Each structure stands twice: as C-alpha cells, then as structure tokens.
C-alpha cells in the first residue's frame, strides 16, 4: 500500500471492488442470482418452500432454512478437494444464520427453503459475496422477507482500516472482519473476526464494514429492480 492510501489493486481505503449482480439466472431453481464481486464469481439457487427430507427435520411451527456453501475444485489456485471441508461447513452455518432473521419462516410450517451456493471462482471475501447473492436469490424466489441481507468485509492492512479486503490483503493483512446487515432494520446478522484489533479499531472496522454493506445493498436493490421493474414501473 502506498503512503497516500492507494491499495495493491489501485483502490482507495474505503472503496469496494466492482460488484455486479444478475437475478434469475437459473431455469430450474425457484430463485437465483449470480454475483461478481471483484474476482469472485458465485452462483446462488433457492428451492422452496418445499417438503422436508428427511422428514424428522420438519418443524410443525415454522419452516426451516438450509444452506450449503460449496467451492468448485477449480475455484482456487491449488485444486480444492470437492468434498465439503470443515471451513465450508462452518461458512454454510454462519450464512444460514445470517439469512434466517430476514426470512419469514413462520408462514411455511413443515417446509424447507434450501439455499445452494456455488463458488465458481474465489477471491477473498467469498462468504460475503455468497451471502449477497443468496439474499437476492431468496427475494427472486418470492419468499417473504423482512429485509434484504447485505454483507461486506472490512479489515486491517498495513496498520490501516480498509473496506472490502481482497485475497492478497487477507493473506498479508492483520485482521479480516466479515459483516452482514439487514440494512432497513439495522440488525447485524453476521459478524466474524480473525486478526488483532484494538477496541477503537474494532469499532471503526465494524462501522467501515457497515457502510460497505449499505453500498452493497444499493447494488442488490438495483439488480432486483432491473428484473422486476424493467419498464420503469415501481
């Protein structure tokens, strides 16, 4: 990073990578989205509400949400074993818990909503990008939601707090903090950190990430508007 805060990929400290989201990219899924977030390329597909298999998982009072985050073997530099790793299982869980507060599951007792995420190419911050795509895919599936979920990471690189840590920065950086927010309700639904932050840095880092989440929200909103309000109707 240079003295005046220009990062290894040319971004300023508070600049996001390029994000583009396409809604409804899959024919079979009830809802789907494709996101490019920097070099991340991620597909999300949603099925349901539908019958639960195995049956004993069904909840008579509410629907359930399941989530699978998976990385393609060709998504990273060294081929990744296609079997789900412990990291992927943990990420699946935190993504599920980040989406759950937004989805109104009470309306669909005894059913399941399945969210499948496939990381085709990974580039740092893939869990946030995956979450952004999954939230849009849920909305595309017509599932009633309290809010969208928008995610973005912030971190500490070369002693400075930066928005949206990329792969190189994650490797060399001092901290990485993925955050997800329900932007209209103002609730944080995912927060993780690894690295070392002083308490004031923790605060700044979280606030930086939250600003990023709000910007991601605008991109998500625009993508949904493009599909559903093409003719300028509101």
């Amino acid at each position, binding site marked *: 990073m240079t003295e005046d805060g220009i990062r290894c990929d040319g971004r300023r400290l508070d600049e996001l990578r390029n994000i583009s989201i396409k809604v409804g990219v899959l024919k079979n899924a009830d809802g789907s989205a494709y996101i490019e977030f920097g070099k991340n390329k991620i597909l999300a597909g949603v099925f349901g509400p539908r019958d639960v298999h195995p049956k004993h998982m069904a909840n008579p009072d509410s629907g359930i949400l399941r989530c699978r985050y998976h990385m393609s073997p060709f998504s990273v530099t060294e081929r990744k074993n296609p079997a789900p790793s412990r990291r992927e299982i943990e990420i699946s*869980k935190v993504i599920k818990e980040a989406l759950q507060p937004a989805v109104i599951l009470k309306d669909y007792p005894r059913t399941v909503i399945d969210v499948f995420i496939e990381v085709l190419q990974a580039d740092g911050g893939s869990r946030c990008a995956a979450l952004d795509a999954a939230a849009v895919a849920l909305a595309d599936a017509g599932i009633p939601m309290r809010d969208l979920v928008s995610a973005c990471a912030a971190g500490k690189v070369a002693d400075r707090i930066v928005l949206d840590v990329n792969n190189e920065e994650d490797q060399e950086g001092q901290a990485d903090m993925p955050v997800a927010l329900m932007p209209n309700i103002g609730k944080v639904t995912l*927060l993780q950190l690894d690295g070392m932050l002083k308490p004031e840095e923790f605060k700044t880092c979280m606030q930086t990430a939250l600003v990023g989440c709000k910007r991601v929200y605008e991109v998500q909103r625009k993508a949904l508007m493009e599909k559903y309000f093409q003719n300028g109707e509101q």
Partner: protein
Amino acid sequence: MNSQILDQLKRDKILDLLKTGKRIDGRTLDEQRPLIIETGVIPKANGSARVKLGNTEIITGVKIQPDKPFPDLGDKGILICTAEILPLADPNAEPGPPNEEVIELARVVDRGIRETEMIDLHQLVLIEDKSVIGMFIDSSVIDSGGNLFDACSYASVAGILSCTVPKWEIKDDAPVLVEGVASKPPIKTLPVSVTMARIGDYIIVDPTKDEESCMDGRITITTNSDGNICAVQKGGSDGFTAEQLLQCAETALTVGRKIRKQFEQLM
C-alpha cells in the same frame, strides 16, 4: 415438539426474570459461572486440563510431536485445536462424523488461540521447511451444560499452560527425542474467550443450556492480554444492533480480565 413448548415456557420465565435484572440461577447479567481448573489430569499427555464451568465439563489433552510443516508455513510450528462433544455428554449428541455445531465449536476455539498468537510458533521449528514441532490440543466435552465455546477455550488454554515441550535433536535430518529434557511452551499472551447470548433486549454472559435453548443470538469474542480483540464469531438465529455489539466487546474485555487472572495463577 414437546421441547418446543417447553422452550417457549422457559423463554417467558427467563425473560420475566431478566426484566427484574435476574437470571434463573441467581447470577447477574454479566456474571460467569464459577470456573474450576485442574491441570495435569492425564499424565500420558504432554499437558492436560479438566475444566468445569458451571455444569459444563471439559477434558483437554495436549500432545506434542515432531511433524512436517505446512508447505507455505515452513518457518512455523503446527498448532491444531479440536473439540468434540462425546455421546456421553448430552442426550442429543450422537457418535459419528461431527455436525455443523461441533465443527463451528472446534473452529472457534482454534481461531481464538491462533489469532491471539498465544504460542510463538516460530520457536517450534527444528529445521526450516522440513521439520517442526506440532502441538495438538484436543478437547472433549464430557458434560454439556451450556457455553461449550468458553469452556473448551479455557480448557485448551489451561492445557497449553500446563504442558511441557520435549526436546528433539536433529540427527541425519531426522528429529531424535532427547530423554529427560523439557521446556515450557513459548507463551506470548493469554487468550480469553467470552460468550454472550442475547435474549430479547438483554445480553447475558456465559449462558446455561436453558438460556441457550431460548436465545435469539450468540456472540463469542476472544481478547488477548494487551486488551486487543482478536476473534469474533456471531451465531444464533437472529442479529444484534451495532450498539449491542460494541457493548459486547467491552463486556468481553472486562469479564476477560477476571478469567485471565485465573490463568496467570497456572503459569
């Protein structure tokens, strides 16, 4: 099904009490259950600890042995923390491959100790890129009574503090054990994990199993001896506001200081 009704009843009771500033077991909101640490319980391990946090009980063993370094980390020793919930610890625990809760537990415990840089891994190198010392810290939950995250983390830290590292010499490029020589592990800082649950608008420290069964959200924050925040994991089916999270960070620092004093006595 029955348990869902019971959970709702429990939640009503717990919330009613929280409104008056109390908890079901009489603690204040930011009070941990008593932490009892016993070390050296498994003499065959290089270090070990048995930790009780209220009704939760953990046994941790530390095994230390020479190993090949990770290809991209040839200048560092190996540190791996695992955790498992034994089938005898909980009526709902099953033998077999770990489920997502157990994987999360193990990874959060590992992250806390790794990211605080508790152990100076550079000091565990025998020959760079070829041979290093590996420390394996395996925790078993033997009685599950809530807040397994902190209990496993405390047991892991206590196990590490109690361990002695054998000495290996390099002969013909292979490590050979030197009998009767051992040293203390290279400790840089003391990580303390503090887990909080949100029930309604209340944040409580160190939730019991009953409190966990009806919580809205959970957060685990690990701090180091210098008062830095080094690892965070949010869990549970609902979120937190940004203000609540900043409050949790402060609580983690203050509660953490008390636990750290208990660790210091083990050194």
